[in-house]
């Protein structure tokens, strides 16, 4: 093995995964090689949130995360949220509130909303805005997104 490649193993969406990554690869590129396209590189600078991935229980920007760093870690992507063949309450709320137009940013917003609601089950408007400040929606569906977050919070409180 050359010095610029690393053999890594990690848990991806519940399955143990082993692969060889190049040191210059980032996490979005790694996921793309596994046909997972829900995390998308958009700004490439960690500002927009389209590449959001959950690594060891925290949200990260996949475009700024070296693929080699996931060695030994647990990764969850948007593709895992309906693994029991049912949309998550957050996904459902985004559909009901029409919280997207083109949908490019949506997977990032949904994953971030999941993390927010884990930490703050009933967030205020200000807390929602603060937490999602690093996610950009170029269609500007922000009012609907905030409604969707609140609606998801209510759904999850009921269950």
């Amino acid at each position, binding site marked *: 093995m050359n010095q*610029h490649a*690393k053999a890594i193993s990690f848990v991806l969406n519940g399955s143990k995964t082993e692969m060889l990554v190049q*040191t210059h690869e980032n996490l979005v590129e790694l996921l793309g090689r596994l046909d997972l396209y829900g995390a998308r590189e958009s700004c490439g600078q960690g*500002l927009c949130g389209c590449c959001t991935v959950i690594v060891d229980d*925290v949200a990260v920007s996949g475009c700024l995360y070296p693929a*080699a*760093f996931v060695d030994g870690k647990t990764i969850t992507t948007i593709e895992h949220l309906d693994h029991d063949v049912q949309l998550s309450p957050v996904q459902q709320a985004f559909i009901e509130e029409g919280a997207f137009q083109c949908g490019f940013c949506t997977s990032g917003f949904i994953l971030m909303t999941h993390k927010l609601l884990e930490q703050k089950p009933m967030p205020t408007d200000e807390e929602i805005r603060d*937490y999602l*400040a690093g996610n950009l929606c170029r269609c500007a569906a922000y009012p609907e997104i905030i409604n969707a977050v609140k609606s998801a919070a209510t759904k999850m409180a009921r269950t």
Partner: protein
Amino acid sequence: MISFELAEPKTLNEAIALLDAEDPEVRPISGGTALMLMMKSGVFRPSRLVSLQKVEADYSRIERGSNGSLRIGAMASLSQVEHSDEVRRVAPVIEKTMRHLSNVRVRNVARLGGNLAHGDPHMDLPPVLSSLGAKAIVAGPSGQREILIEALFSGYYETVLKRDELITFVEVPPQAGWSSSYIKCTTRSADDWPALGIACSLRIEGGSIGDVRLMISAATEKLTRLVSTEKVLRGQKVNEATFERAGESAMAEAEVIGDSRGSASYKSELVRVYVRRALRQAGLGETQP
């Protein structure tokens, strides 16, 4: 991005041994958020990166000393620092600063040591930690040394750290009797890099300013302590007139640089206004018990 050798030492000492005092293409990487940007844009093309991700967990701990001091491991993520009860109890200004520092995902990944060692004059934590009187504990091949955060930066993206030295801990002294504030001005969008950052800590004694530390960042080539303005402030009454005089003094003292976020003359005016506001916030805010 080009390919490079990635070393993943398990201990701090191994990490130091893998660094190279002479070779600028060999660098440590902690969270990687800032270095990834530099590598993607081609500004930095490493031959070897020494990852600190797997070094001893001691360097990620946050502890409060019995005297009210703080000791933060350099590998603590900015989120860890943001949500630490210990940090909040000693220096609530840090938590307030984090709220507007980049975004949740970057804070989850970026590490305190990397944030400081990067030497970017637009960062928020260097002025805040300097105004608290914090210092960095630094380890190298020949042992340890301490550097005040205010003395860490030697120029634009330059620090006094040697290429084979690593920040291991940041120590914040007890803040009893002090109150602190940090405000920044972003001119293009709320989440932009700041055009100006002002951090100040005041020790107020009987309605007068007993001691003060006043830092400016982002508008200047490197983090700078406004020493002359501090002299203007010491011993003065805590009131608007004092703050106003300090704003005038800071405007005259700071060597501001114009860039895409504002011309030098515009930023000078910002200095006058923001120094006054930062002092007002610290002066009329709560003092640490």
